[in-house]
């Protein structure tokens, strides 16, 4: 334990966390960055030793931020944050870190929708396939189907194709025509459009079909995936037609779920965002509703790396202001707020163009597992509602055990909430999602480590 607390601990070394740490550090604050990964960069800049940045976006931004961050505690899994007086004790797998203020930039992970066969080896999340490639230089398979919804499918497919995998197709369940409804958001973010066009060019070069209103509705195989049912969908995502496609891997992603353990442990208020995710509330200074806690990046709304950089900088500047009294430059804050507004409008347009539609529930059969850790089937969950009288996600969890296993609902929480709400004839609520998001222990910790006070 350090003798005196840091001014600021930043949880997460992705774009938001690094931008926050760099801004606060340049303002004179004593900052420590903590991440479970041994390297900085987060998911966005996930890389290997000796990586030169080839194939990465804005690699020079990463190297610039890294140079501005003096203290990085890599490989430190945060399992709990405790308020101690005016400050915080951050409990990690590598020991305790004390700080006066906290910036939570813990990012997001893949949002998954179950379908028959989704637990077969060879079915990856889009982010998982991407991490395997960026972090280890390994493609998830040789013949890969990429499916789901959202712009993230494009870089995943392009990266896999560039690395030599045969990408059978990119199947986008949504119909991004909805995007045309937001011309303002598009014009304000020309860089983003250019990025998307670049990926599409890569797909064309590799002759990879890109289909909308289409997705993987089932995976087949005995030991591992050998084929996928590719389904054409109606606007609500009900299946219109099916065909079977041979493949040895499937990468699926339906957007992202913000990682909210720490904000919820600290009692931060939440809201439902446009993409249906539970996010923590942040104000114009990136402050959470709890004193001393700042939020940046996906935890306060999924919006991608450029928005994370802006929010991180805002959070770092304001946290430095409150901890060491370094007043930020008003003009700079104004510019950052304008960029935040534009980036958020773009994110909102993307969310609007890529909603998860309720028809996915019709892809399931009774034996499909909603929760893979505890092997809880659709039938079992339905029984807890119909026979045992559960009316919300928490009650279903307590009676049928989805979300009780090793992942503690990270994988199945969103899908289970949607399933339960639909079975009860309503939309998923903030309470439904909260019922599977609160985790007083954010990472498994041994009892021996706990007992060592």
């Amino acid at each position, binding site marked *: 334990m350090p003798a005196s607390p840091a001014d600021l601990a930043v949880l997460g070394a992705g774009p938001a966390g690094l931008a926050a740490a760099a801004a606060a550090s340049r303002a004179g604050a004593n900052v420590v960055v903590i991440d479970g990964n041994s390297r900085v960069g987060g998911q966005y800049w996930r890389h290997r030793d000796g990586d030169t940045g080839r194939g990465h976006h804005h690699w020079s931004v990463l190297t610039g931020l890294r140079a501005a961050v003096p203290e990085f505690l890599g490989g430190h899994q945060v399992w*709990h944050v*405790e308020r101690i007086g005016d400050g915080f004790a951050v*409990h990690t797998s590598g020991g305790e870190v004390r700080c006066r203020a906290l910036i939570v930039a813990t990012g997001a992970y893949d949002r998954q929708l179950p379908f028959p066969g989704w637990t077969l080896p060879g079915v990856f999340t889009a982010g998982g396939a991407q991490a395997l490639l960026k972090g280890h230089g390994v493609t998830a398979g040789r013949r890969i189907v990429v499916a789901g919804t959202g712009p993230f499918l494009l870089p995943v497919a392009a990266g896999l194709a560039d690395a030599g995998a045969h990408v059978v197709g990119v199947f986008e369940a949504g119909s991004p025509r909805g995007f045309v409804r937001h011309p303002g958001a598009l014009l304000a973010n020309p860089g983003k459009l250019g990025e998307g066009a670049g990926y599409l060019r890569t797909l064309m070069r590799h002759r990879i079909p890109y289909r909308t209103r289409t997705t993987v509705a089932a995976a087949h195989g005995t030991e591992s995936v050998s084929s996928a049912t590719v389904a054409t969908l109606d606007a609500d995502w009900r299946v219109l037609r099916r065909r079977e496609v041979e493949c040895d891997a499937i990468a699926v992603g339906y957007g992202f779920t913000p990682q909210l353990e720490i904000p919820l*442990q600290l*009692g931060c208020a939440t809201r439902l965002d446009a993409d249906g995710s539970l996010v923590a509330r942040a104000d114009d200074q990136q402050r959470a509703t709890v004193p001393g806690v700042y939020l940046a990046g996906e935890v306060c709304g999924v919006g991608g790396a450029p928005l994370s950089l802006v929010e991180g900088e805002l959070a770092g500047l304001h946290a430095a202001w409150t901890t060491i009294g370094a007043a930020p430059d008003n003009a700079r804050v104004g510019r950052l707020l304008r960029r935040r507004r534009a980036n958020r409008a773009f994110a909102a347009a993307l969310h609007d163009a890529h909603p998860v539609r309720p028809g996915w529930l019709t892809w399931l059969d009774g034996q499909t597992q909603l929760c893979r850790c*505890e092997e809880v089937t659709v039938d079992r969950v339905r029984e*807890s509602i119909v*026979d*045992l*009288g*559960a*009316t*919300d996600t*928490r*009650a279903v969890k*307590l*009676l049928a*055990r989805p979300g*009780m*296993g*090793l992942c*503690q609902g990270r994988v199945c929480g969103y899908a289970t909430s949607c399933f339960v709400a639909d079975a009860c004839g309503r939309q998923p609520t903030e309470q439904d999602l909260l019922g599977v998001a609160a*985790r*007083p*222990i954010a990472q*498994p*910790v*041994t*009892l*021996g480590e*706990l*007992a060592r*006070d």
Partner: protein
Amino acid sequence: MDVVVVGAGMVGAACAYFCAEAGLDVAVVDRGAVAGGTTSGGEGNILVSDKEPGAELDLALYSVRLWTELGERFGAESLELQHKGGVVVAQTPEAAAGLAKFAARQRENGIGATDVSAAELAELEPNLTREVSGGAYYPQDMQVQPMLAAAELLRQARRRGTTVHSGTEVLGFRQSGGRIAEVETSAGPIPARWVINAAGTWGGEISALAGAPVPVLPRRGFVLVTEPLPIVVRHKVYTADYVANVASGDEGLETSVVVEGTQAGTVLIGASRERVGFDRTFSLPVVRKLAAQAIGVFPFLADVSLLRSYLGFRPYCPDHLPVIGEDPRVPGLVHACGHEGAGIGLAAGTGKLIAQVVSGTTPDLDLGPFRPDRFAEEVA
């Protein structure tokens, strides 16, 4: 409606089930979901081992018989009922002597308690610490999955005509002709000849709404849940200090560890006791203490991961006895709350006795020690 049960937790479910079985028309109301309150924060203990001779032990023994019958009737699996037995461990010669004396008195009062040596403890629980002086084995102790048990009894009650109204809050009560006549709820009024206050930790609030307050207060308890493991803990295992703490009236934090396996493979570690009102804040110091005590009993737990923790509020009365029976201040109002940390175990007996009260038959047990107006002076 013959009976409106307020509270869809374990006690309310048992009351509804036994009333429905007695042929009464029953409605259950709860402002939350089924089994989502007091019931969801516990471990599912059905214990006789921690009871001193007296009214509560009589109720516990009566309940154990009924739980066994319920398990036979509906299938142990539907309740996750396990007749696993309890093992109490004494870690000093003094504690062992005290425990032996306590067990002897329990035997005189109908509990099957066997004194066991350190060597026998190692056979009962191979992973137990060897630093033990002696212990006692209680074959009657058992366990259910409390939410499942409550939901199953409600399901059985529904099969017998009971209606369950979750998400329905009780707003007040209307009397007529000197007795309860109607329950006002957020979903409209429900006429009732009898109202059963089975609101658990919130039983005090319901009693006050009805104009017949009983002092039910929350005592906070944390439970730790480990990663799933093969069967490493066979019984309900706790230290002899637990009995002293259960009966304690101290304000401050007390922890005395209870360790047990579940059918899901996780190991549950309780039980802390604190009087901090309805404070839901996670407390790391309490959790650390429980972890240390659990390792003291089962050293292998040091290398086992904690997956999650939860907390609950145990509804207790100043004299640590539940409130069971009709309230003479408001005829027609029947209390079934304040069971502290023993509510799951005592629920079966409580439900059956309540059904006898409202059916007008003589209760199987004397309800005198549990009578609602015993606090009259304190409340006034």
